[in-house]
């Protein structure tokens, strides 16, 4: 079973990398960019087959290590 995890910065946390990406896109001629927020995508292949317990385990992984919940939110998809 695969878990797909998106980790994003919380609202209100400045994202200098996202800002630099926005500037780079503008310098390439892309107009109308309001904001860019950069995050992480992590895919985990697990031996488990039960969606509920997998989700619970992966959410624990996020809180323990994969995300820093002081500044980041995470979402988990399993299947």
């Amino acid at each position, binding site marked *: 079973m695969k878990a797909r995890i998106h980790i994003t910065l919380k609202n209100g946390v400045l994202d*200098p990398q996202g800002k*630099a990406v926005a500037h780079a896109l503008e310098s390439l001629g892309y107009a109308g960019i309001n904001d860019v927020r950069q995050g992480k995508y992590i895919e985990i292949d697990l031996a488990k087959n039960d969606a509920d317990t997998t989700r619970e385990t992966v959410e624990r992984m996020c809180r323990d290590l994969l995300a820093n919940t*002081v500044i980041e939110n995470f979402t988990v998809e399993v299947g």
Partner: protein
Amino acid sequence: MKAAVIVFPGSNCDRDVAVALEQSNGRKPVMLWHRDTALPPDLDIVVVPGGFSHGDYLRSGAMAAHAPIMRAVKARALAGLPVLGICNGFQILTEAGLLPGVLMRNEGLRFLCRDVFLRVDGADSLFTEHYVQGAVIRLPIAHHDGNYFIDDAGYKALCDNEQVAFRYCTSEGETTPNANPNGSHDNIAGVFSRDRRILGLMPHPERLADSRLGGTDGRPLFEALVEALS
């Protein structure tokens, strides 16, 4: 004073801080590997040194914060053992939950390697009592992720408990935006735990603790520790 320095794969200031400790203390610190599981029972302080533990993968300090030795450090720190985290060590202590806040990517995105001025805003601790409150000192920084972030409630608690140890400032001691090298909240360069027995700071006191290295502004920190803990 019996000191231990933790060494992670990618630490690169472990020997520098060992030299600075020995110079002030007259005794070599114990070097502990990240896979060790126990601290010597009669230890007076643990130092988590600078570097790039685990290649800064995921987030700076995130992996090291969960190393086997850090379980022992955390348990003893919560029981009152002093801990000093410098640069990557500061990042590791925040990731381990021993210090509040997070060190994010520098606002200007560049790796910064230069001397900065710091104002001593918390001179009443076992780390800083050889400095004068409000004094301006000069120390080097060398980091990519030194942008100190803390939410509003956390910042209020830091201020209420006077947990800010150092702030980036001008040579005159003014904490202006221009004197802030990395975008840190309120120019914060170093913070204490609530009980003031844990200190994390981004600048490197061990790199300016000997006049042969061009300055000695870092030395009072090590001498204060020796006096307090011997």
